[in-house]
């Protein structure tokens, strides 16, 4: 399932943000993603799983190799969530101003 909230939850972790930054250049295998990181490779795999479930990252297979890449749809859901948030906030502001006019 993909929605903005899942994506926000996934990105609340600094390691997962680091992983996302590493994927900016294009698809990477787990080993490439984990290179130079202080956490174990299984831990990186676990983070990738969370990112995948949030819809931010997609996994593809080429033969026996697994690659991970940023998934545009997941980022779109996140933007949509924040877009809604500001839309609701401004609408609430307008109601506040109109209410005063009416009273």
């Amino acid at each position: 399932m993909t929605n903005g909230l899942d994506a926000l939850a996934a990105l609340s972790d600094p390691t997962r943000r680091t992983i996302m930054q590493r994927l900016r250049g294009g698809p990477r295998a787990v080993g490439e993603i984990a290179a130079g990181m202080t956490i174990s490779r299984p831990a990186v795999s676990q983070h990738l799983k969370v990112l995948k479930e949030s819809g931010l990252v997609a996994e593809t297979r080429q033969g026996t190799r697994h690659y991970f890449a940023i998934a545009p749809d997941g980022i779109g859901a996140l933007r949509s969530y924040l877009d809604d948030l500001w839309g609701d906030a401004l609408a609430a502001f307008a109601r506040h101003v109109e209410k005063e006019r009416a009273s």
Partner: protein
Amino acid sequence: MSNAEVARFAVPPIEKSIVVRCDLERAFHAFTAEIGQWWPLQMFSVTQAKARTATIEAKIGGRIYETADDGSTHDWGRVLSWSPPSGFSMTWHPGRIGGPHTVVELSFAAENGATRVRLVHRGWETLGKDGQGMRENYNGGWDKVLGQAFAGHLERAA
């Protein structure tokens, strides 16, 4: 990855606009000094159901924060520029303070006897962009905006 795919990741800033039927001064005052009266705290706050009000301190460097029912305060950001009644901008990193940040800009303009309010939220949109071209102060943007502030929100949604 093709260039087209990369481009799709360059999410633009969020831009919003709304017209309210009052003059410029009133709109600016209502947005800032009265934010505690209209901000949807249930939808967006650090302490969620415990949040009681929100405050914008009217000065450069002023805090934007919420106050919870136990009296504790939780920062959302800091005022970067303050030009009443035409606009103001603030850093936006609810739940944390200091360091890199995203920026929300508000501008107010008279329009046919009413006031147009424009909002631009930028700095969080760099996810997926080439890190080489990324401005330094964007680096921690995700941390601030998307981090702790939403934790309670997310737990409820789960």
